[in-house]
């Protein structure tokens, strides 16, 4: 446990000094600041106004930025350190491979989740100061959704880092994964369905296997419980899970996917060459 925490602390300190972290924090803090600045809390969409309107927009933007940010910075840092000889030295110290790998994940998770969560807390604080009502239920679920999203893509990033032997390969693979997930968002699937190549059930199953789509649908479900904007896909999803069931699935599935990918990454890491 001591080794795990030491490694996590090491990764946190390294990340805090890295430029990517400063940009990352600035991006999410900046989004909240800009949304307030442009008076988003005053505008209305689908009956949403105030902080709930801002949170809906914030989570949509986060969903577009966070996955690629987490994937690229994780693989750059992990594969880059290995390539630069950092692993050769640090893994010559008496630290167990499990403590090293999971400690790195823990440290990185704290570093990637805190700015995103911090920006949401900032939004809540500003809302409280301005006397805007805070939708605590929505805040709680979105926080959980962001926590799960970070864990999912961090796990995928660690798996890619364990598989790729160079930074270039790791970056390329991370970008490819993100692009593939993006391609299989429901818009593409709807296009395929329209052409009549696949049954709606298959298309929806593929969409539900895509963590990006899962997050997107879960975020939509909060302000559109009947998922009207999804069209016919909504029937399959709601018949399968129900609204609450889907909200639980949206938290459970990406968590399992992230932990599964990280565990597979760990097995590859401990069985292969370390530096």
């Amino acid at each position, binding site marked *: 446990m001591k080794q795990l925490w030491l490694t996590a602390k090491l990764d946190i300190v*390294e990340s805090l000094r890295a430029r990517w972290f400063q940009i990352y924090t600035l991006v999410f803090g900046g989004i909240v600041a800009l949304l307030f600045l442009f008076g988003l809390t005053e505008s209305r969409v689908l009956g949403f106004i105030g902080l709930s309107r801002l949170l809906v927009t914030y989570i949509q933007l986060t969903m577009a930025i966070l996955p690629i940010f987490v994937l690229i910075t994780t693989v750059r840092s992990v594969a880059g350190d290995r390539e630069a*000889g950092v692993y050769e030295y640090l893994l010559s*110290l*008496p630290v167990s491979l499990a403590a090293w790998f999971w400690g790195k994940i823990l440290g990185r998770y704290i570093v990637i989740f805190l700015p995103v969560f911090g920006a949401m807390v900032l939004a809540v604080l500003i809302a409280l100061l301005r006397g805007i009502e805070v939708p605590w239920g929505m805040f709680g679920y979105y926080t959980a959704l962001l926590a799960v999203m970070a864990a999912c893509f961090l796990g995928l990033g660690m798996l890619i880092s364990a598989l790729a032997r160079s930074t270039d390969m790791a970056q390329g693979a991370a970008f490819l994964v993100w692009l593939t997930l993006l391609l299989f968002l429901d818009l593409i699937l709807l296009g395929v369905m329209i052409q009549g190549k696949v049954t709606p059930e298959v298309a929806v199953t593929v969409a539900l296997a895509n963590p990006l789509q899962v997050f997107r649908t879960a975020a939509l479900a909060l302000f559109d419980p009947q998922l009207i904007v999804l069209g016919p896909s909504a029937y399959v999803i709601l018949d399968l899970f129900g609204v609450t069931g889907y909200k639980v699935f949206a938290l459970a599935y990406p968590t399992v996917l992230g932990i599964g990918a990280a565990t597979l990454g760990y097995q590859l890491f401990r069985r292969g*060459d370390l*530096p």
Partner: protein
Amino acid sequence: MISFSNVSKSFRKARVLDDISLDIGLSERVALIGSNGAGKTTLIRCLLGEYTFDGEVRINGRDPRQERTAVLGAIGFVPQLPPPLKMPVAQLIDFSAALCGTDPARIHQLAQRLGLDLTPILVRPFVKLSGGMKQKLLIAIALGREAKVLVMDEPAANLDPEARKIFFELLAERQEDVTMLISSHRLNEVSALVNRVIEMDMGKVVLDDRVADDVSLSGQFACRISIKRSEAAFIKAMGAWNFSDIGNGLEWAGVVPGPDRLRFMGMTSRYVALISDFSLAEAELKEVGAAAPCVPGNPLRGQAAAN
């Protein structure tokens, strides 16, 4: 102490280690030499449990891969190229001390002995230190624990002569109860440090020889050099070795650490046309103590060094 049994390692189709079998006993000081690509670094990484391989490596009967924490806790490692760590110096020291179960104060003391004052650089990122500072710190971390095996890749390459002398002294203090594996491209860099030489080529051991050297690791040589005329390059070289001018730039005296004498003579050979007289004699520790003022800021004046 250390045993390699039929160790082979391939990267894709390239065989980097080819059926290596070696036994290295306690208190042996081994020079691992060979050209680039000979397999030295790969062998070291197998020893540290960083690579997977065919065959078996054991340190005191233990597998460095399966029992990492126990095995690596007894190994001090100094890499050839310092890692580009962004963490501050203080954190690196605390991290390694905490993992190795040692007191960070011990690392501070060793760094101080090597001429590295850590206080002003504790908050500085490790990667921002000079090459020599990094090397001194990594040596202090490796020696600042109860290591039974020291694995060093060109450990003294970036050290100034004074730090090299102290480094040799530090090794001498532990030579009885520690096994050392020192990797280098050239034998003359490490010859005086070791009592066994293993040369590798194309992944095989091509030479395994014992070396007898009467000069101990802490031995010192008093040296005196006369030159025909004053030369700026020679004066600079003498300054780098902490020699003192005892005759208007034409006569120089100083102390050379025993393990460094080959390197020193290699340096002086560049000025052979300039040198009119040269003496190098093993000095008793007492004599060396008397000659010690040749370190910077304490010039050796009027002391006949030896011979």
